[in-house]
């Protein structure tokens, strides 16, 4: 996390434009520029700037947006729930479809279902979410007039964006679930149970599931980054007012503090989620415990 903040800060401040000049416009006099620079603390040395940045950040102050002249943290906080909503919906869909398919595929390896599942899983990973989004808009929203094209609102606004974000993740989930389950099913204790004549009973199944879950949630945690990234694009396509769109607009407007804030917050979310995954580890598998 520390390293992240350093790099983010460095990135933003290596910028070859002068943000103060951008802020004030081309006609600002040199004195005005110097005055604002002093006010924003840009004339101090780098390490000092960094320390001030961290100090403020820990207090929740991530700087002022250049364009909107509002606190960045305010902008991010407003946009964040939207992104979280979208990401959660996509995750839900992907898991809902992916895990059962993966399990079924593992139960019948080599079958038609299995091959079809893998084919579709890889296909899902090959389709860019924005193209899927555009195609869905064209067909569902424009041709069939079934669902709205953009914006955030009720459930019907959520469906299309979530559906264009989910397949990529679903593909990954199917593959990892299948592999994990195949591994678990070939374990000795399962084979022994089979030998003793037990069918794949619910009890056994539950144990197999628990053990198989480990790699699955690991990968899910790691994929959070990709999910957030995908959300950025999907938000742009669907006009979803989330953090991603905020970031894209900020980049176009050279609004560095916003970009900085968004990157920082995303990194934070990622770290938190992986922490949760680590904790879940010890819940699921009693063998792993932290001293």
């Amino acid at each position, binding site marked *: 996390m520390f*390293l*992240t903040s350093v*790099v983010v800060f460095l*990135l*933003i401040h*290596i*910028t*070859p434009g002068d943000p103060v000049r951008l802020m004030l416009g081309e006609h600002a006099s040199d004195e005005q520029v110097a005055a604002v620079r002093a006010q924003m603390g840009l004339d101090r040395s780098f390490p000092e700037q960094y320390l001030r940045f961290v100090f403020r950040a820990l207090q929740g102050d991530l700087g002022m947006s250049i364009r909107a002249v509002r606190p960045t943290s305010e902008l991010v906080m407003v946009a964040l729930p939207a992104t979280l909503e979208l990401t959660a919906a996509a995750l839900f869909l992907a898991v809902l479809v992916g895990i059962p398919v993966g399990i079924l595929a593992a139960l*019948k*390896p*080599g*079958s*038609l279902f*299995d*091959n079809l599942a*893998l*084919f579709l899983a*890889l*296909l899902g*990973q*090959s*389709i*860019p*979410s*924005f*193209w899927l989004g*555009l*195609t869905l808009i*064209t067909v569902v929203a*424009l041709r069939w007039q079934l669902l709205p094209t953009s914006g955030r609102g009720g459930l019907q606004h959520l469906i299309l964006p979530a559906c264009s974000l989910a397949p990529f993740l679903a593909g990954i989930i199917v593959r990892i679930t299948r*592999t994990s389950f195949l591994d678990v099913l070939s374990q000795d204790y399962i*084979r*022994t149970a*089979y*030998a*003793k004549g037990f069918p794949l009973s619910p009890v056994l199944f539950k144990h197999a599931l628990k053990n198989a879950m480990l790699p699955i949630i690991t990968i899910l945690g*790691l994929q959070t*980054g*990709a999910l*957030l*990234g*995908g959300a*950025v*694009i999907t938000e*742009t*396509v669907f006009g979803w007012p989330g953090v*991603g769109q905020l*970031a*894209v607009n*900020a*980049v*176009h407007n*050279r609004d*560095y503090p916003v*970009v900085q804030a968004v*990157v920082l917050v*995303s*990194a934070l979310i*990622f*770290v938190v989620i992986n922490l949760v995954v680590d904790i879940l580890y010890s819940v699921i598998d009693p063998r792993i415990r932290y001293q």
Partner: protein
Amino acid sequence: MNNITSKIAKADNKMNARKAWGFRKFFPLFRRAALSLFGAVVLLLIIMLAILVPEISHFDPFKQDLFARLQAPGWVNNAGFTHIFGTDQLGRDIMTRVFLAARLSLAISFISVGGAGMVGIILGLVSGYFGGYFDDIIMRFADFQLALPLILLALAIVALLGPNVTNVILVFIVTGWPIFARTVRASTLALREQEFIEAARCLGCNNARILMRHILPNVARPLIVIASFELGKVIIYESSLGFLGMGAQPPTPTWGNMMADGRSYLDTAWWLTFFPGIALVLTAAASNYIGDGLNELFDPRSRRA
């Protein structure tokens, strides 16, 4: 004793029988091989078309012809030439632009994966072989890379350095090396204790030689698999960046910015977004299936049948 052994054997057979149930024993293997072969063919086809089509096409991909704008696929213009994929909002032939964009996208992808691969392999070898301080630092950086979503980092870098092709490649190299490094490091760690390495050392090989001639070739297989998957991934991300407007700038066509242009015409001229999209999906799918096929080939565990 015998009872249990034979029972386990029977259970094994039962499980294996389930595996082959419903399908001939060889067909699943053949199917997967066929799919990845198909992927290879598609990719080669696209590469060939990318090289050929802009050369032999009658249309200039940059010349605007406003009388011919937004024509549906199959429209024949005054000179008698057919726009197979239709024209875009400035009257340019879409097919020519799609394959011109293919050149750029493919080039960017290959260079990015190659660059990330080289950096990753070198860092992974050093990290795994020498261990210690190097290892710690390099792995810290690798972990840190994971935390940032690629797109956001790409956005940040492009915001700073400007939207062009070089920066896109830079972004991918910077974000793409960890996966190569990690894989190489894992294999290196395993191999470094082997006897043949020790033997080589006894013969007087210096470290560099050992790394290049003995360790690297053994690490190559998973690397090829990873490289093909990364290729698919990079192609998609590159076009995503192009879609957002960061990447090659107009009038240079990339699949991403062609689709961004076509967004305003979704209900009237679907072909503006459709054809670049299909090209993109085919290319990405091709590399993914190739990677999957190679994975099947190299990793005995994932074989079924």
